[in-house]
């Protein structure tokens, strides 16, 4: 049983008690320990963890004080025992010192302790990091802070007042358990075997019940037979809630793998931690960022160089158009009822043509040298979009007036590539008068809305038309909207601009409708009662 070492498990998450390089292979709850043939008191209910380096028993009741670890190197042989009737399945482990660690005199505590300590994890005095057992190193470095393991650590930590503890160097990880002695608590008090009262270490008999206590001197190891006999150093793991076969299989695999013999990756890992690590991380991040930026700039340049070729590709739209025409002709020539199944490419060409909305390439600045000619070209293009377009009527369609935002949106949508900025639109608008058919002029409405309108919707023309209409009968706004085919807001603005001129007057009826009349106020003379 003395192969097992006490270990403090403060946090049941495996991340907290695994060393670096140690891997968790299996965990099984509800496991009890047997030392030899007898149940180990205090270790009857816990979680058994199998890692690549050790077996770890985390007690359920008191994980801090009763958890144990067993380096896998101590396991000589294993045996499985399937449960029978009332006894649960067990794994029997025969323990022994691995080669090179055997000491001739196991009763020599110090030596054993020394060796035991040297293959146990140690706490760094500087940063308190729990380092894994140092294999092969006589003076290993702390993984976290890089400080060499000082020699005195063996003997200094956890020193208690009691002298009797002197010869028992302790780290928190290396307190051996000896079944045959009365156990000690960490501050040296001796529990009485009869009444369990904790007596002062110097006492020889229990204060309460006067049963004799074992020797107060540091318990030495009893002169048990040398651990050649496998039977003597045997522990059993009892799986109270099953899981034995699987655990056993994993255990055998892990023992075969002998993970504890591999050296820990030192340098790399060490440099990943600590201040060094932080600096490295920052450097790595900025490197990654730089790489990303470079890559995206490269992409952008590639795009720019390809823009020209993409534009050239649109020239092939002509070819596509020709194809489209041929297809249409062919389709029409088919007798009624039949239709051809266009191959995918043909439909794609057709849909792209439609989406483009243009049958020429979009005009860009580098295509035309002269500014004037450029704007003229743009104007022609815009006129086409607005008044010709795909359906012969263009975006303006039957409407004679269109808000400038709609104009711009429709134009850019038709262009697809090389979108035109708003100030180009502003520059192009004056030329629309010449190129448009009917000529388009800019008109600013009272609310500030800019519109393009045909002569029909020019100020005077609209007014004349409206007055003529109202002369026959007054009309509500809604009626005017319908007759002129403009939107409500736009109609209201137009009508109000006529009202500003004084040609029409409004009439609000109690039910909210707004009606418009020709302005006749001047016509009336007083023809009511005359008094004098």
């Amino acid at each position, binding site marked *: 049983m003395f192969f097992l070492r006490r270990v403090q498990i403060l946090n049941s998450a495996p991340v907290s008690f695994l060393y670096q390089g140690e891997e968790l292979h299996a965990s099984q709850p509800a496991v009890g320990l047997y030392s030899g043939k007898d149940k180990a008191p205090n270790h009857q209910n816990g979680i058994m963890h199998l890692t690549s380096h050790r077996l770890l028993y985390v007690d359920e009741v008191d994980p801090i004080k009763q958890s144990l670890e067993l380096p896998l190197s101590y396991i000589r042989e294993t045996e499985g025992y399937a449960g029978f009737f009332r006894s649960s399945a067990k794994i029997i482990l025969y323990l022994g010192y691995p080669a090179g660690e055997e000491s001739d005199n196991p009763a020599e505590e110090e030596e054993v302790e020394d060796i035991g300590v040297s293959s146990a994890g140690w706490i760094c005095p500087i940063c308190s990091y729990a380092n894994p057992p140092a294999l092969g190193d006589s003076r290993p470095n702390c993984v976290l802070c890089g400080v060499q393991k000082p020699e005195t650590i063996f003997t200094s930590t956890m020193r208690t007042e009691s002298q009797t503890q002197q010869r028992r160097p302790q780290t928190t990880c290396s307190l051996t358990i000896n079944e045959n002695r009365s156990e000690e608590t960490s501050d040296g008090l001796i529990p009485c075997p009869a009444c369990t009262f904790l007596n002062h270490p110097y006492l020889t008999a229990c204060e309460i019940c006067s049963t004799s206590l074992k020797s107060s001197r540091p318990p030495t190891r009893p002169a048990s037979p040398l651990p050649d006999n496998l039977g003597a150093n045997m522990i059993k793991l009892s799986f109270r809630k099953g899981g034995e076969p699987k655990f056993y299989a994993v255990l055998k695999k892990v023992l075969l793998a002998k993970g504890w013999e591999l050296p820990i990756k030192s340098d790399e890992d060490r440099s990943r931690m600590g201040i060094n690590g932080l600096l490295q991380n920052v450097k790595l991040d900025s490197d990654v960022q730089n790489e990303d930026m470079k890559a995206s700039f490269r992409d952008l340049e590639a795009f720019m160089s390809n823009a020209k070729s993409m534009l050239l590709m649109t020239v092939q739209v002509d070819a596509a158009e020709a194809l489209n025409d041929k297809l249409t002709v062919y389709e029409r020539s088919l007798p009624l009822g039949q239709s051809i199944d266009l191959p995918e490419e043909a439909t794609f060409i057709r849909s792209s043509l439609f989406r483009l909305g243009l049958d020429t390439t979009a005009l860009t600045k580098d295509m035309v040298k002269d500014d004037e000619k450029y704007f003229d070209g743009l104007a022609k293009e815009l006129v086409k979009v607005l008044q010709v377009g795909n359906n012969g009527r263009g975006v303006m369609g039957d409407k004679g007036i269109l808000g400038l935002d709609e104009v711009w949106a429709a134009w850019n949508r038709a262009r697809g590539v090389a979108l035109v900025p708003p100030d180009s639109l502003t520059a192009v608008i004056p030329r629309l008068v010449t190129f448009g058919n009917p000529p388009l002029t800019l008109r600013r409405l009272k609310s500030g809305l800019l519109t393009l309108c045909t002569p029909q919707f020019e100020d005077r023309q609209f007014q004349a038309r409206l007055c003529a209409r109202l*002369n*026959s*009968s*007054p009309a509500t706004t809604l009626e005017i909207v319908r007759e002129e085919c403009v939107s409500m807001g736009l109609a209201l603005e137009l009508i109000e601009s006529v*009202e*500003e001129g*004084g040609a029409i*007057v*409004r*009439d*609000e*009826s*109690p*039910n909210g409708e707004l*009606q418009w*009349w*020709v*302005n*006749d*106020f*001047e*016509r*009336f003379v*007083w*023809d*009511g*009662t*005359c*008094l004098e």
Partner: protein
Amino acid sequence: MGLELAPVKVQSGFLLPSIHSWPAFFTYQPNPRTFSTQREHWTTLILTYARFARIWELKVGDVDDAASGGVWGEVLHNPRLKPPRTIGRKMLQILLEQLIEEERALPDPPKQSSSVILCWRTIPEWAGILHDWAVTTGQTNTILTLFEISNPQVPSDLSGMPEPLLRRAIALLQKTGKAQVIEGADGGGVRFFP
């Protein structure tokens, strides 16, 4: 305009002008020029009707009972239109302000413009009428209370005149020396001189 409008005689005998039958007349016109014409028509109508029906006061609240037979119902409301129109409160307020400005209305109570006394005769006219009445009824040089003037035994042009208007007319006469105000316990009196 398609429909020809004609004056309408209402129940009280007043002849409403043809413009009163035009719906647009009842809507406030935002165009300033149009509105000035509209306002003129309205103020003339109001004053003429007040004189015809001898109504002394007008307030914005009269709009509310115009449809249901208030004193001003015939003018402020036109039930013959489809749907019937009533003048808006905002517009009436503006009209009253205009009347006050033209001195054809007195704010009553003072310092607001929602309720006025209409001067369907101007104050100088009233002063003249007042003095003439005093002379013709032989009541010069005697002290008359204001009540006596506005509620004479024989109905006169001054019957029912509200006090503020009367006072104004008297004040005007006082300036020309034709009347003298006598302070008294309740309201005081006035003495006219020939």
